[in-house]
Each structure stands twice: as structure tokens, then as C-alpha cells.
């Protein structure tokens, strides 16, 4: 064999052809073979069923998630004009003692205003990630005895007989 032939042979034999399932399919079709065996059919049916099932379940879950998201109501919009102004209440109390009466004026009390509606977190998970804070359920504080506004006021008891007169 010539050197030329040897070089050609060595070079050509480096060429590789990769197998594809399509080639078997074409051959089986031509030869009149069944492309898949019984076991292969079982495997194909099982795999395709699991793919279809998985896809359906995934779609169902996605629809559920989207629905749940759309059900979250938007926070109520409060018109600033509707807000009650922080009012200064001048409390007055009238104490009667016998026929005389003394009017006691209390200190002005700043009435606390509370938000008309609590803020609604639209997507709690996102909020958590963003703020990196834990949202804890509110804890009901123990009831503290309610102090009446007159408790700290010392009442002045005046006996009209003890009042010195010019007489």
C-alpha cells in the first residue's frame, strides 16, 4: 500500500458517526420491525403519563396561587378630609357639694387618634424578604386598671361655716 493510501485511511477512519434514535426508527420501519418492545412501550406510557400528570398538577397549583393572590383586597383608601382632626378636649367637671358648687377645670387631654383601618400586607412573603423583619401576631396585653380622670385630682371640700367673714 502506498504512503498516500495509508494517510487517507488513517485520516478517514477518524471520522465518527453518532447514533440517533431516528436511525433505528427508520431502519425498523423499513424492516417491518416494531420500533419499541413491550417493556419500552410500558416505560413510554409511564413516563408520558407522569409528565402529563405533573403538568396538570402544576397548572392547577399555579391557578390556585393566582386566585389566592387576586383575592387579597387592596388597602382601603382613606380620604384625608374624612379624618377626624386631632381635637383638644377641654374636660370640665362640676362637683356639687350641698347648695354650692365648685367648678373644677381639668387639664386639657389630647385625645389619641387611631388609624381607621390596619395596614394590609399584600404579599407577606415579599414583605418579609424586603424588610428582613419578623411579623408577629399581636399579643393582647393584660388589662390595666382604668384610671378615672378625677383620681389624681384632689377635691377641695369647703365648709361654708369655716369661712371667715368680716362679721
Amino acid at each position: 500500500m502506498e504512503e498516500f493510501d495509508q494517510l487517507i485511511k488513517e485520516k478517514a477512519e477518524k471520522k465518527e458517526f453518532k447514533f440517533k434514535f431516528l436511525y433505528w426508527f427508520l431502519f425498523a420501519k423499513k424492516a417491518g420491525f416494531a420500533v419499541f418492545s413491550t417493556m419500552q412501550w410500558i416505560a413510554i406510557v409511564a413516563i408520558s403519563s407522569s409528565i402529563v400528570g405533573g403538568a396538570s398538577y402544576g397548572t392547577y397549583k399555579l391557578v390556585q396561587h393566582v386566585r389566592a393572590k387576586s383575592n387579597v383586597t387592596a388597602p382601603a383608601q382613606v380620604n384625608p378630609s374624612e379624618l377626624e382632626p386631632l381635637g383638644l378636649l377641654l374636660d370640665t367637671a362640676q362637683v356639687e357639694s350641698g347648695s354650692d358648687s365648685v367648678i373644677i377645670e381639668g387639664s386639657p387631654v389630647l385625645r389619641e387618634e387611631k388609624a381607621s383601618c390596619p395596614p394590609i400586607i399584600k404579599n407577606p412573603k415579599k414583605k418579609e424578604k424586603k424588610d428582613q423583619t419578623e411579623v408577629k401576631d399581636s399579643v393582647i396585653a393584660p388589662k390595666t386598671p382604668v384610671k378615672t380622670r378625677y383620681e389624681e385630682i384632689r377635691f377641695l371640700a369647703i365648709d361654708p361655716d369655716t369661712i371667715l367673714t368680716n362679721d
Partner: protein
Amino acid sequence: MIAGCLANKREAQHRLFKTFYSKLFHICYRYASNNEEAQDMLNEGFIKIFNNLDRYQPTGSFEAWMKRVMTNAALDYQRKHKPNFETVDYDAISQFESSSYEENHAISKISSDELMLLIQKLPPMTRSVFNLYVFEEYSHAEIAEMLHIKEGTSHWHLNSARTKLKQLIIEQYRD
């Protein structure tokens, strides 16, 4: 695998096809003019392999037996489908000039893909003789018997193949 194929089991047949696909397609690709023709040759060759598997003697190499069957299938395909598959005898043996440095350098520079395509460009009979002599390593006497030609014709085709291939390689390299 062979026992499975003899029992007509699809899995075994598929495994055999997959295992030897590359090597056997390589043979068909060299004898064919294009990819589609090579695929047809391969399919016909594999049908022959499966149909004649019981004739295989386990004393010899199974791969070598399959390669022989595939080569014969490729030659049969050419006889059947190529009306210009020459049977003209050429007695005059032309002298082949040894390859120069430039030609050998050109071979080393072109890719195996390009080389295979250049082999496919040779005329069918010339290509078959070249493949049988260079790749399958048959003698001229054996080739003459296989192709129903004279030994001198086999020599002529071989020299013709070498000369044409050299030209094509140099052209490819210069481009």
C-alpha cells in the same frame, strides 16, 4: 446480544444496531455518493445481517463478519441503483506517481469530514475499488472477482482514484 437477535428480540436487535452503527455506517458512507444513499445502504445491510445471523460461525470475529456483510450490501446497492456502475475493462495499467510532500501535507491539513466528502466525489466503480483495496485491504484478484471485472481494470480504477483524489485534495487545500 446475538442470541437475543436470533430469538427475534427487539431490545437485542436495537442494542446491536446501536453498538455497531458508527462502524458500519462508516463503510456505507465511503461507498455512497451522499448521506441518504449511505443510510439506505445501512438499512439494507442490517436487514441482511439480521436475516443471516444464523449463518455466522462463532469461530471468527463477529464485527469482521458484519463488516463483510455490509460491504457486500453496499456493492449490491450500487449494482442495483447505479446504472452507470461501470463494467468496462481497462487493460492499460497507468503508472501512479508517488505523492509529493505538498500532497501529503495537504492531506494532513484537511479534516476527516472533508476527506470523506472528497472520496464520495469519485465515480462509483473507482470509489468501490479504492475502498476495497485501501480500507477493506482486498487484493486486486479478490476485487476483480467481487466486482466481476478484470484484475487490470481494478488496477486502473485504483490509480484513477488516487490521481483524482490527489487533485481534489490539493484543490480543497488551496481553497
